[in-house]
């Protein structure tokens, strides 16, 4: 009788565990892992895609047994007739067991892919689908979301811009309008306003901050606004610092052109640690992503069988925000004046010490209260910022 009970118990455990297994994370990849990487732009764009590409190259260098297969220019204009999930499968056909979709524009296809391939480890970079408290939560055992807290990098960029502008007019070259881009543009504004008021002791009403969206992460002729023309318009209408929120380097290129004509203009590129190379004489600095450490952790989890679906929004390493092995975001300084450079350093120390600019009183662009006096924004409030902030000029919502 006892043996029958044990038999039933074991059967029950087996059935239960097999059910768990079916819904659980993929099996451990073991000592060898081929990583597939899908990038929205060219792998050498000196922007977002290159930052992701080098993040994966860092994995290959740091984690023995890994190798990389990739495809770039995964967007409807460059690869018509294909879908990101189809291209992901092409990488799987090359042996990939770990596939990273690295643009929010791939979200729908990444979900399709993850659902169709539960045996593949999937990263949806910059997404929020695996954030249990998030608005887009869709539990998928094989997917994780990775994002860096670029809000800090953008705030530092704002400080650098405010300390440099002579006209008091700053332009923000925005990509398309969504939660992410609103909060990043607003972070720049918060940093600029903080420097304007606290370091320069000026009236915040005198700081002009204008946002123009081009419609996508990079220029698509005939489809998006031309970022070159947008930057020109900024410089021709009084802005002397343009901060880029797009994935390519038009802001720096145009600033260099104007600079060579003798005009005092500057730019701040985005995304990639070497983005200033396009115009070192005009770049005030660059806030950049350092994907390597987070991707290494994900790859090791996939190999060791410790993978768990989750959302991560990673901080800079406040001991050294430019530490390639530990910091998720960083800021490289460019041609700042001595005073501006020292102020940026001071600001970073203040941030490391707990300074929070996402704190009330703060109003949204239409004047409604966003944060009451003294109240700090939650992660959810920051991630899902519904409008630009009061004091910023530009479209808050796509019309």
């Amino acid at each position: 009788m006892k043996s029958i009970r044990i038999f039933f118990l074991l059967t029950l455990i087996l059935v239960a565990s097999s059910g768990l297994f079916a819904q659980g994370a993929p099996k451990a990849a073991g000592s060898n892992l081929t990583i597939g990487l899908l990038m929205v732009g060219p792998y050498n764009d000196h922007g977002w895609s290159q930052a992701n590409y080098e993040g994966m190259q860092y994995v290959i260098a740091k984690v023995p047994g890994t190798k990389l297969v990739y495809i770039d220019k995964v967007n409807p204009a460059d690869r018509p007739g294909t879908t990101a999930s189809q291209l992901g499968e092409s990488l799987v056909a090359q042996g990939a067991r770990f596939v990273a979709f690295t643009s929010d524009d791939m979200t729908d296809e990444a979900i399709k892919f993850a659902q169709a391939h539960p045996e593949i480890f999937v990263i949806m970079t910059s997404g929020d689908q695996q954030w249990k408290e998030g608005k887009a939560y869709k539990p998928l055992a094989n997917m994780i979301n990775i994002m860096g807290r670029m809000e800090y990098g953008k705030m530092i960029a704002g400080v650098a811009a405010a300390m440099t502008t002579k006209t008091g007019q700053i332009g923000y070259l925005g990509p398309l309008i969504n939660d992410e881009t609103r909060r990043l543009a607003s972070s720049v504004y918060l940093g600029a306003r903080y420097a304007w008021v606290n370091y320069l002791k000026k009236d915040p009403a005198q700081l002009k901050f204008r946002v123009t969206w081009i419609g996508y992460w990079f220029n698509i002729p005939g489809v998006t606004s031309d970022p070159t023309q947008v930057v020109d318009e900024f410089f021709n209408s009084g802005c002397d610092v343009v901060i880029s929120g797009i994935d390519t380097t038009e802001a720096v290129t145009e600033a260099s052109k104007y600079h060579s004509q003798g005009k005092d203009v500057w730019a701040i590129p985005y995304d990639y640690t070497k983005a200033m190379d396009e115009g070192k004489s005009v770049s005030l600095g660059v806030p950049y992503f350092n994907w390597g450490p987070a991707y290494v952790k994900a790859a090791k989890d996939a190999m060791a069988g410790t993978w768990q679906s989750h959302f991560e929004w990673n901080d800079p390493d406040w001991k050294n925000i430019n530490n390639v092995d530990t910091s998720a975001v960083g800021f490289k300084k460019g041609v700042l004046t001595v005073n501006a450079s020292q102020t940026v350093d001071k600001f970073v120390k203040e941030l490391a010490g707990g300074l929070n600019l996402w704190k009330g009183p703060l109003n949204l662009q239409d004047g409604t209260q966003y944060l009451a006096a003294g109240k700090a924004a939650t992660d959810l409030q920051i991630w899902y910022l519904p409008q630009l902030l009061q004091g910023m000029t530009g479209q808050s919502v796509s019309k």
Partner: protein
Amino acid sequence: MHESRPVRMLFGSGSIVFALLLTSLVLLATGTNPVAAYSNILQGAFGSADVAANVIVSWVPLMLVTSGLLVTFTVGLWNIGIEGQITLGAIFTVWAERELANAGLPPGLVIALAMLAGAAGGALWAMLAGVLKAFGGVNEIFGGLGLNFVATALNLWLIFGPWKRPGIASMSGTLPFDPSLWMPTITPQSRLAIIPVIIALVGIVFVFILLKGSYFGLQLKAVGKNPRAAYILGIPTWQRMMTAFALCGAFAGLAGGVQVTAVYHRLIPSISSGYGYSGLLVAMLANYSAIASVPVALFFAALNVGSIQLPIVLKLDSSLAGVIQGFLVLFVLLGNGIRTRIFGRQDSHGARPARSKRSKSGRQCEGDDHE
């Protein structure tokens, strides 16, 4: 001198060999082994059941578009506006799905009605090019090109405006439809839906019968050969041209509908995927033959899908597929030209546009007669 079948075959195969040779030279110039490139394309197109299914997925809209173009080519029209017609087909399909999604109708019926709406949208847009030609004297090439730009602008406006995702304007397009409104696939994991394949096959058979075995098709050919003579013989020329435009547009609209219901499940900025222009090349390479266009379209689809391996494996740009397609069409046209010079014109290969023989549209012919 008489042109024999082996001579035609020699010219045909010679064109392919030259196209491959030239592409190989391009590859060698970039330091790539041509054999490796071609074998990767082959592997990428037919290396597994999944990729072969992707080839069929790509073949369906291409075949539909080519079917429509065979009709307009027969009547002597260069329907360059086909890209816009695909786009309008997609827009009408999305519009119908949005309107009917909550109407309480069975999903299958919603999809069917949406596809019909797509066909109607494509046909209407094509007829606009026809109206511009017949009544405005606007050459269909320029009219079509203009309408393509308008269709693209309309599509973008809808995606970034009235149909945008909540609070977000995104190049990734509108919000995907509920999976119940997707064309059913052969297995849950597959991308291949069987209904669009059937539609494409029925479509090309319909066009074959229409052009080869119907009085209507004969009238279209007569208009295509010489609209003025056709008019004198009592064929209503501009009406036939308008019908050809409408038919072609309907096929293009169906292709747009397939892109929405079976491929992307939403409206995206480049929803036509360039299938319109590819369809023009397919029709030319197939020498305007309905039967030949089936394998040629399959070949183009295989190149499109297989070439994805080039950037992945060889770090080559996948636009090489476009280079091969372009060279092939160029050499086939060149071969035809040389053959015609040597052996003289022998119109034994069915319909083809013969624009050099005439300069005015059917409507204008009518006007001429009244003068």
